[in-house]
């Protein structure tokens, strides 16, 4: 309990050969993907035992349909959680972008998509200005943005957007279309594109370095010259953009914009990032982990469907997994 001890300098362990236990702890702490892949494989095996047909492209496809929007939204959460932030408005941004895209669909797919995405960037930037410049707590800022958007679009749904909620066919194809004999959803391709973008952003750019530095130790980042507000505004803008991408995919899947489009994905998107080993305190995490987290949630969804387990069991399982894995990560980090 002694909080004073947290000020003690880190332990020294480099000058002696590592014990086996310590080196395993370090491996797992540095690469939570190892654990996640094991969990994912175990889940797939269990699901396949319960429902042998699951192990087919068609069976896996259903898991993918569920995992894709979570994975895209969780990309935004991952980026923000690396800065010790969070985006509670991302699902509402997704819904709102879907409305914009649907409204603009008569003007062609390109304009619909561009305006939809642009909306996401603008809404995200507003969050970023609040958090980065006015230092509003990210939880509050994004919560308020979510409320504002919900209010606006609930009102507009019956006025401005009334009768113009149908998505352009191209967006519908992206959302629910498939290729290779109907086995591979186009949305998976979109997710792969998003993944490459996010992975490169985090690992291969100076911006990614700033992101991790800021989240790991804001004071050290400031003293070595990082300008936090710029990093944060861009991070929230990217999160908004990713929210819009997910919104278009969901809108395409349903075929139309709808107020209930994405709200139910908000908590799973945070859960996917947490399961993937991203620390909500910032500085630690990878999008690879988040992808695995989203896939685990996707397979879990299929498993629970096959079991006939209801919402209730699913919720309890979600909660247990989030707390359990986080606890394990924190133990591993402390042990290494």
């Amino acid at each position, binding site marked *: 309990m002694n909080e004073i001890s947290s000020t003690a300098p880190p332990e020294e362990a480099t000058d002696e050969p590592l014990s086996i236990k310590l080196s395993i702890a370090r491996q797992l702490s540095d690469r939570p993907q190892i654990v996640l892949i094991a969990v994912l494989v175990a889940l797939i095996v269990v699901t396949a035992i319960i429902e042998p047909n699951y192990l087919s492209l068609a069976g896996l496809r259903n898991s993918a349909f569920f995992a894709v929007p979570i994975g895209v939204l969780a990309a935004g959460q991952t980026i923000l959680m690396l800065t010790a932030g969070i985006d509670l408005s991302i699902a509402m941004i997704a819904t709102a972008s879907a409305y914009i895209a649907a409204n603009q669909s008569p003007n062609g797919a390109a304009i619909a998509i561009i305006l939809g995405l642009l909306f996401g960037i603008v809404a995200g930037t507003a969050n970023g200005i609040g958090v980065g410049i006015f230092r509003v707590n990210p939880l509050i800022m994004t919560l308020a943005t979510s409320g504002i958007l919900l209010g606006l*679009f609930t009102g507009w749904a019956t006025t401005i957007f009334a009768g113009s909620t149908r998505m352009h066919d191209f967006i519908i194809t992206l959302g629910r279309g498939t290729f290779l004999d109907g086995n591979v959803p186009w949305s998976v391709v979109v997710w792969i594109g998003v993944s490459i973008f996010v992975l490169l952003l985090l690992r291969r750019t100076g911006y990614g370095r700033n992101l991790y530095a800021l989240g790991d130790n804001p004071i050290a980042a400031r003293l070595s010259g990082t300008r936090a507000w710029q990093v944060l505004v861009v991070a929230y803008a990217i999160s908004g953009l990713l929210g819009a991408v997910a919104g278009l995919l969901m809108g395409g899947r349903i075929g139309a914009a709808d107020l209930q489009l994405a709200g139910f994905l908000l908590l799973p998107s945070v859960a996917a990032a947490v399961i993937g080993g991203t620390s909500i305190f910032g500085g630690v995490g990878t999008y690879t982990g988040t992808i695995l987290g989203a896939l685990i949630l996707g397979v879990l969804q299929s498993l629970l469907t096959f079991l006939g387990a209801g919402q209730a069991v699913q919720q309890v399982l979600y909660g247990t997994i989030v707390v359990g894995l986080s606890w394990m990560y924190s133990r591993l980090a402390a042990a290494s």
Partner: protein
Amino acid sequence: MTAANPTVEARPLSGRSWRRWTQRHGWTVGIWILLVVLVVWYSTLIPRFGGFQFSTIINGGTAWIFLAAAQAVVVIAGGLDLGVGGLLVLTSATAAQFMDGQPFAISIVLAVVILIGAAILNGFVGWIVTVSRVPDIVVTLGSLFIYQGLALMMLPKVGGGSSDGFRWLFTGSATGIGTNPWPAIVMITVPIAVAARWMGRTPSGLSLYAVGSDETAAFLSGVNAARVKIVSYAVGGAFVAMAGFSTLAIAGVGNATTEGSSLTLNSVAAIVLGGVLFTGGVGSLIAVVPAALILFFFNPILSALGVNPNQAQVIQGILIVFVMMVASLIEWRRRRRS
């Protein structure tokens, strides 16, 4: 600026201490005045403002107040509890399941048991937060999911019920609709006043502020920080149970499909408006009560104005952002100064 601190010994006010008093309690007074102004204004907006309208506001606001109080206790002690919304759904579903068809006396016994159970359950969440060193926001995100799932297991379909007397306790009427606001007012005032006094005057209550404000200094003053945090979550759990009972009393039946997360978000918004600082150690239950009522009250007022509820939500969101920006900037300047 910000928020009110628990009251200190009353003393004759000189000019200087008057300024200090307004600095310290200005937020609380301001929020109360805002509430009164809104109620008066509302009464002029609608054709008839009487006991029915008044008790509707009080009754409907009860759950918001208790939920916000729960969040406030936890945040003041330096934590955050996203699980409150889920726990509300769980307690009201559990109460609905077991109280259905029971006489008044039994329903009260059940209420006490459920209240204690909620306190223990949420105290356990607090224990996980302190022991695991997993961020509170993650642990309580998990507890939000779990509570919601448990509620669905407890009461898979909308149903259950409670006793007439139980409903009267929270609504002043056996049907949940009536013109008598007094039972609800008492049900709110007594627990909140007791808790506010505990937090403002007693060593154990002030320890919540101490841990939220400066954990190291609290430890040096002899405070056991881990125990205090667990207590804060447990007290929060008890308040949530009260919110759950009120919800059940108004609706008459339990509903486990209610979205707990949006209830949590309401509680967070209410404590922000109530001047509780997210960094911990600052805030007062006395200011959180009117803040929660104002948030609840927004929709009726604006609908009386002919504004639709959606625009009301927009205005509410903008208000919260504005309040937070001002609060953050003032707080930032204050910290820079010292």
